[in-house]
């Protein structure tokens, strides 16, 4: 199990040279980056600010008041804030709704509309434990309050549990472009999973099965290189490639300031998991065509399982044993909130270890001979 840096360097150099001489793979990677670039350019706001919005919500009776006019005219783009009367965000019962993961600072009059509104209650709406997310907007709000000199209004600060929107009111929220940040997060997740799948699974299988079919893998394995070194070099190469391209896409879509370390942890885990699958596939296939078929079966099997899970509860249990089920959740959560979801991650790692042990065993027994 000894790893020699010189051998790893040589094997990595070989893979890098192979990639450089593979224009179709480079073109596809370039295409994925271009898609990310197009998405970010088509976005109205700057990519960094497109993540979350803090809504300043005031009662309808305050509309056209100097105070709300001031808020409308001076609200900053960073932190991203929007000012709206309550009725624009309210459901049929008049209760305020928020797009998922957005924040709100809600102003509630403490007296009836007939009387003069000299007192207000300020309510913060944010996901539990994420005050830091609303803090920049709150800081602006209070400084603006003092600057405007609203000394005649007394206030009280409260906290309200986070509320998700109902479907009936979604259309109006979409018109306000508030929901679009959620879509971007999903697009980013899918794009990153696509990149990881392409580099760590498809390209891995393609390179490995090509090497095996030609006999190059056997020639390398008969040189003084251990099978462990061959596998390690492959893992490092494809993981580095996948994470590099994914990081680029993440930065393009979300902006450098919104990239969380947890996203990299998830990307590395997902890449490693898919490389274990790829090692298994390329160990069973002696030719590229067979490898492609196995790959197709894997994808088709996954798709079928996900579809069946929507119909029969038993398949939802089986679904828990797939990487794809957890990968989407983990990556989306890390991109949107920077959080690492502990339970899915633990399950994911257990699955990865099982696949890694199986893949390494199969590779050493039958995966390198032509």
């Amino acid at each position, binding site marked *: 199990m000894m790893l020699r840096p010189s*051998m790893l360097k040589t094997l990595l150099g070989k893979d890098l040279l192979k990639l450089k001489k593979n224009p179709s793979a480079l073109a596809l990677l370039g295409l994925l980056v271009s898609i990310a670039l197009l998405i970010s350019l088509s976005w109205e706001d700057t990519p960094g600010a497109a993540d979350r919005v803090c809504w300043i919500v005031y009662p309808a009776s305050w509309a056209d008041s100097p105070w709300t006019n001031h808020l409308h005219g001076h609200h900053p783009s960073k932190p991203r804030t929007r000012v709206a009367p309550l009725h624009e965000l309210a459901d049929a019962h008049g209760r305020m709704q928020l797009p998922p993961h957005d924040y709100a600072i809600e102003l509630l009059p403490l007296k009836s509309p007939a009387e003069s509104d000299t007192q207000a209650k300020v309510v913060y709406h944010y996901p539990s434990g994420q005050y830091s997310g609303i803090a920049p907007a709150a800081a602006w709000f209070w400084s603006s309050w003092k600057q405007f000199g609203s000394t005649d209004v007394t206030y009280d600060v409260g906290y309200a549990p986070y509320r998700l929107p109902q479907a009936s009111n979604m259309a109006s929220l979409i018109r306000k472009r508030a929901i679009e940040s959620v879509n971007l997060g999903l697009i980013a997740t899918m794009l990153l999973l696509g990149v990881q799948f392409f580099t760590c699974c498809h390209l891995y299988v393609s390179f490995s099965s090509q090497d095996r079919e*030609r006999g190059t893998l056997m*020639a390398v394995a008969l040189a*003084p290189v*251990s099978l462990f070194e061959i596998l390690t070099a492959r893992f490092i190469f494809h993981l580095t490639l996948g994470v590099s391209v994914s990081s680029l896409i993440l930065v393009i879509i979300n902006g450098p300031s919104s990239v969380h370390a947890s996203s990299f942890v998830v990307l590395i885990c997902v890449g490693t998991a898919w490389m274990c699958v790829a090692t298994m596939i390329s160990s069973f296939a002696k030719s590229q065509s067979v490898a492609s078929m196995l790959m197709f079966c894997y994808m088709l099997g996954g798709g079928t399982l996900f579809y069946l899970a929507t119909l029969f509860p038993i398949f939802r249990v089986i679904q828990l044993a797939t990487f794809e089920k957890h990968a989407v959740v983990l990556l989306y959560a890390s991109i949107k909130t920077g959080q690492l979801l502990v339970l899915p991650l633990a399950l994911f790692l257990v699955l990865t270890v099982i696949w890694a042990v199986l893949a390494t065993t199969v590779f050493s027994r039958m995966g390198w001979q032509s």
Partner: protein
Amino acid sequence: MNATRSMSSPAIGAGSTGPAPEVSARDAMITVRDLVVRFGDFTAVDCVEFSVGRGEIFGFLGPNGAGKSTTIRVLIGCQRPTSGVVHVAGCRLPHDLERCKPSFGYVPDADNHIDEFTGRENLELFAKLYQLNDRLVVDRLLSQLELAEAADVAVANYSKGMRRKLLIAREMLHRPQVLFLDEPTANLDPHSTALVRELLRQLAADGMTVFLTTHNMDEVEEICDRAAILCRGQMVACDTPANFISRYSESKVSVQYSTNGKTHRQRFNLERAEDRGQLADIVRQAHNVRLSSEEFHFEDVFLKITGQSYA
């Protein structure tokens, strides 16, 4: 272990003439004892035994499907034998494969280059894997095998012969103690064939053990010190090419003669009384009799041995 003889089970005419050169245990670079390889019910290699000494060129022959490639796969550690003991360069295989790797080179029957790389890049990759720091080795081998001009061309554009030569160059990079070659001169033009044969002779003279399979019997006659013939997984004979020929040669003559204005041509084996009688009659009765002796080649030996084995 005393001197070993490269003989195995049901030998045809084994030991009937002069003995083949023996390989002492100390000099043996390849030792195979009771090698059996089975795939399910099919026995690909059946109790094969032989030894090959240092600096020897050993031909491993047999018809298609005889078990040659399977034996080589065992000898390079790619195939686990069902039973038997295999030593290459002092390492027991497949257990000591990692230790044995620097000691041998393997030229397979189909080339296994990275086609996108140039010839030089292919050789440099393997030079690095063998931790050879001397960059001149690659240049020297490229020019030795007359590939220097095409060194910076992608291997995908090489001819079959050039690919073959590059393969041989690659496996010579680290100067292994034992070189396994599966049909080394297949697809080579006569000039390149002569070049490779001369190269193999030089390597053997420098002490490298060369183990080759070939279907070119001239090659065996020309360069091999010893040859073994495999048939249906069993080694049926092992000797020097000269001994093979002297042991299995037949005195054959070609006769051209005329009777009743017609010209006839016939071959006779003088070792058979019936043929001798017929020939005597022709010489007595026919006109314009012309006799010419026929040379007996290693190919005839091979056909005779494999023919008998299959019969």
